[in-house]
């Protein structure tokens, strides 16, 4: 009797963080084994894993992953990056390919920041792009690292944002340093109105010690950024990379994908369709959270193996935090009421027209 928990789970990456939402039903051949399961589990302060598949396998592999991440942290004095954790997990699962192991996990986390990994050294493709000068200068300018490879890696991730930061130059606060500019400039330009508290801004400002000449945005002329880069090279390389949100999907069949939106589980097609309709860049945090919740709700409505409650987690540079568990039965009744009211109004209008 293998409890094959089919779930509806959605994860989404926004500019400032990752949102993970999941239901809480564990089923076992037609019976609800437990209506209040925790499917989103933290691995460390900046990484959360959502689980789907066989309940026991998920619990075990989440523990193994947390154990390995903790060992890495102790040995290397910094957190393992989300990509690193995903790769580690994929390689650990590979020997079990072809067996009955069934896990589909998404790793939602924030790379970098204080105590986090350095920018991804990344692979051979990035070296190519460094040579052609694409994105390399911008990355160099703000990160202050000697190895342009790493800058280019960072610039790759933020390619769209780099141009946006340039345009937002005039809006950026002059007092903010390069990194702070990049972050807030990106936000304002791309219209993400996610709550950036004052403390977050200050933290970003303290992170980036280097101030560019004339307080220009980092995406201004290449000369200033190059000058900034050489100045930064001389500095002690201690400032942590501010990092970014990351989302990976790892499956027991060996798949390991990085992406910006994943929905996993038996209810996933229902969730995907709702998300694909409404999702766009520029959603505020509350809009994004309510969209994630809506997606899980629709999946629980249609899928027999998903249901009960919804958990929503939000991971940003400060770490993860979660909303209180919400029973979706209430949502179902609320929607039913709304439908009834709408129908009543339509009938009234109909009668008026007659």
């Amino acid at each position, binding site marked *: 009797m293998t409890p094959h928990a089919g779930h509806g789970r959605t994860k989404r990456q926004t500019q400032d963080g990752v949102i993970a939402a999941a239901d809480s039903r564990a089923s076992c051949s037609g019976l609800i084994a437990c209506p209040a399961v925790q499917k989103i589990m933290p691995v460390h302060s900046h990484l959360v894993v959502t689980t789907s598949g066989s309940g026991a396998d998920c619990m075990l592999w989440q523990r193994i992953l947390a154990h390995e991440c903790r060992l890495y942290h102790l040995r290397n004095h910094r957190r393992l990056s989300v990509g690193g954790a995903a790769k580690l997990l*994929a*390689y650990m699962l*590979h*020997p079990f*390919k*072809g067996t009955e192991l069934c896990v589909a996990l998404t790793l939602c986390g924030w790379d970098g920041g204080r105590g986090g990994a350095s920018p991804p050294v990344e*692979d*051979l*493709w990035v070296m*190519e792009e460094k040579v052609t000068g694409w994105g390399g200068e911008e990355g160099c300018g703000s990160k202050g690292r000697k190895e342009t490879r790493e800058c280019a890696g960072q610039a790759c991730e933020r390619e769209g944002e780099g141009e946006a930061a340039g345009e937002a130059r005039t809006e950026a606060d002059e007092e903010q340093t390069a990194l702070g500019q990049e972050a807030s400039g990106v936000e304002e330009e791309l219209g993400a109105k996610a709550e950036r508290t004052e403390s977050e801004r200050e933290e970003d400002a303290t992170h980036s010690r280097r101030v560019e000449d004339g307080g220009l945005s980092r995406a201004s002329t290449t000369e200033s950024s190059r000058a900034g880069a050489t100045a930064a090279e001389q500095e002690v390389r201690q400032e942590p990379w501010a990092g970014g949100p990351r989302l990976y*999907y790892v*499956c027991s*069949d*060996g*798949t*390991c*994908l990085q*992406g910006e939106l*994943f929905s996993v589980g038996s209810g*996933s*097609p229902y969730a*995907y369709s709702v998300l694909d309709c409404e999702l766009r860049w520029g959603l505020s945090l509350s809009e994004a959270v309510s969209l994630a919740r809506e997606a899980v709700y629709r999946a629980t409505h249609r899928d027999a193996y998903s249901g009960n409650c919804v958990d929503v987690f939000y991971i940003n540079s400060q770490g993860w935090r979660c909303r209180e568990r919400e029973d979706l039965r209430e949502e179902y009744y609320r929607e039913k009421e709304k439908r009834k009211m709408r129908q009543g109004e339509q009938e009234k209008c109909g009668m008026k027209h007659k």
Partner: protein
Amino acid sequence: MEYLIGIQGPDFVLVAADTVAASSIIQMKHDYDKMFKLSEKILLLCVGEAGDTVQFAEYIQKNVQLYKMRNGYELSPAAAANFTRKNLADYLRSRTPYHVNLLLAGFDEADGPSLYYMDYLSALAKAPFAAHGYGAFLTLSILDRYYRPDLSRDEAVDLLKKCVEELNKRFILNLKSFSVRLIDREGIHDLERLPLPQQ
């Protein structure tokens, strides 16, 4: 479901792969890169079973890099192809065979461009043009009809576009976009993704 194609010219190799990463009926990712850079002038295109593709391709990739570190010079495409074939063959009759189909494309200073076709049974063949996947049934005859050994780069890209158009027309699955790369004496170049954005 997945599609790879390679066309060899007199001094270049053009390769393309679709960019969909699917899981049963769902497209999980639309911009997935199936090409693995083995060295400055060798690309390995890899499709097949989920997980096996990345594991095997990265294993080959790291080993080719290791060879370069140990010996100071890079493996030639022919050597890399045969190394890959040997590994695939060794795993074939083990408990964990890798179910992957590969195209290996490279440029050698001495031998010029080369394209190798390899399938999951580790059959290796050097070919002027090759394709993998269900799409190959539809496009190989186009390549047979229009391929010439002295194709220019533009002509090769046009031939590739013909193949993609045929897929869009007759293939039951929607392969929306393809990543395209060209290998020549200067190295690996990214070309514009197909299909081109409509104006």
